[in-house]
């Protein structure tokens, strides 16, 4: 076998490994991950490589800073989630030292200001988008915005980001409106 053929064969193998590793990661999360649902809002956005998506903002993103968090810059923090009676998960505790558990996620925290003398932080989640692919009609876009916008709370409808947590990492699986997948909502309205 010529050297060029060997290089090509190895490259071809690597070209399969990268997407397959992503699929394997997804399947691992689905098989072994802990389910959590977080309150969220979203806006429609566009990625040049992967198309249309919902840009998520999680209600749990603003928190009080843990006591031992450094003053400046971004810091990794470990958040422990706990599900309430309503089925919605919320952050029970934040720690700057690594912790483990089925519902612990590693996040990135940054100082965002002060409230009543207490330091506040904003959290960066390992997921922030749900790809929807479908081109929304103006009516559907308006409907989705009404269900997912930050100011939707008056309607009493809650949008939830369904995630799977595994080994401190998290994967966004779906966004639910009234218990129905937003993809199904969009598909139904588009038909």
């Amino acid at each position, binding site marked *: 076998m010529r050297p060029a053929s060997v290089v090509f064969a190895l490259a071809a193998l690597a070209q399969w490994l990268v997407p397959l590793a992503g699929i394997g990661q997804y399947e691992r999360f689905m098989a072994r991950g802990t389910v959590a649902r977080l309150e969220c809002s979203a806006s429609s956005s566009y990625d040049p490589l992967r*198309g249309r998506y919902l840009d998520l903002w999680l209600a749990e993103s603003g928190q009080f800073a843990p006591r031992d968090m450094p003053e400046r810059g971004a810091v990794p923090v470990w958040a422990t989630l706990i599900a309430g009676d309503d089925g919605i998960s919320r952050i029970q505790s934040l720690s700057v030292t690594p912790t483990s558990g089925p519902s612990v996620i590693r996040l990135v925290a940054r100082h965002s200001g002060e409230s009543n003398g207490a330091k506040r932080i904003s959290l960066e989640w390992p997921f922030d988008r749900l790809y929807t692919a479908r081109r929304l009609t103006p009516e559907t876009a308006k409907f989705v915005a009404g269900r997912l916008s930050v100011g939707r709370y008056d309607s009493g409808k809650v949008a939830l980001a369904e995630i799977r947590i595994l080994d401190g990492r998290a*994967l966004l699986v779906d966004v639910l409106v009234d218990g129905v997948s937003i993809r199904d909502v969009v598909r139904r309205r588009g038909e």
Partner: protein
Amino acid sequence: MEKRCGVAGHAGLGRAISIRGRRMRLIHHRWLEEQLPAWEREGLVTAEAARTLRDRYAVEPPGGLVQMIVGAVGAVLIGTGLIAVLACNWDDFPRWVRLALALGPLAVTQAVSWWVLGRGETAKPWRREAAAVLQTLAVGAAMALVSQIYNLPEKWTDIVFWWCVVSVPLAWAMRSQAVAIAYLLGITVWTVAESLKRVNLHDAINVADVRIWFPVLLAGILPLWPGPDLRQRPRAGSRLVLAVTALVGLLAVTAYATVRPAFMMPSFRLSPWLVMLSAAALVLFPLDRGGIAEPLARKPQVVLGGLMLVVLALMETYERPARDLVAAVWPSLQLHWCWLLLAVVAGFAVVAFRQGRFAVLAVASFAILPLLAAPLSPQGAGGWPVAIAYSLALLAMAIVLIALEFVGRQGAARIGAAMIMLLVILRMADADLSLLAKGIAFIVIGCGFLAFNAFVSRRRATNPGGSPA
């Protein structure tokens, strides 16, 4: 053949015979090309002999920009068309169909590339280019679509990084210039994006250290240029992309390295001195004898780096920029990246000196001036000493570039004259003179520049050559 035509005195017949002769040669060459694999198998000729025969009796030129462009453009159009056709129905497909559509083209293009690669030296260059580009597009599409189908939490920069890493071996194995160019553009975009993350967020969490990664990724092109035999050279267009990649990448790494607490107050600023050092490293990049002998137009790294250094040096002839430049020297010296750049510039400068490349050394010396001027500047003098030093250095360099031309070396007399003209114009614009006086001075300078240009042209026409600088 031509002699016979001359005897016949019939130009049309001569042309016809000449064309027929070329066609016959082509047929013979093609016949030979078809026979060679069998002869190699049967042991009638060695692989080395077969290669020599193929080179000597080539069916078509072994490359060619047009072939590369035709192959690459065709591949891009087919790939883009397929993506557009699938995208309009994408949502209606179940997941397994979408996955098949994401990975299927990868399998098909890999098979096509394998077939083209199996043809060895007989594969036409445009086929190699088209197959390699299509496969590269299929790799990117597969990664992006799988990420979309499974909603994977990857950043777009992660996809670009892996796309580059798994595609560059195609440039090596299939000697694809288009894939090499795409790879260089990809690593530039990725390096700039990672640097911007750090610059904007002022932290290093989830940001790749481009001080390590950019040199490693840039070295990924070495198996193609200069290749295992150290003799492969990129074509003119590829050289330009390579030079732009190196310059933009170095600037992005400089921006990344500069983000430190000392630089964050009151706001982030790119150290102008480190920018100069990056440009100097590019200008001084070592060349072999063949490379040095090539005209300036085929050395985009010298043109780009030199242009950047001269423009920056002209800016430093003003007091305020010169003051900022001197102020940036000490904080820059705290950075490991600065010392690495200094070491690289010093090493390259030694090589350039031994090769007698005095013109590029003169241009690169602008980057060292702040290091010498900073400790010598009197306290409270502001930027004036450095600004004056830059004016004098520019003038000296212009004279050197003109003088090299007249001592039998390949100088750049016109560039030298243009620099003197620019310097005079800048100082005239500052001067407290009437508009009439400035207007007359500009006319005189313009006439002098045109006369010098005509003189150099006439001199080169009568006395071509000169040793390289």
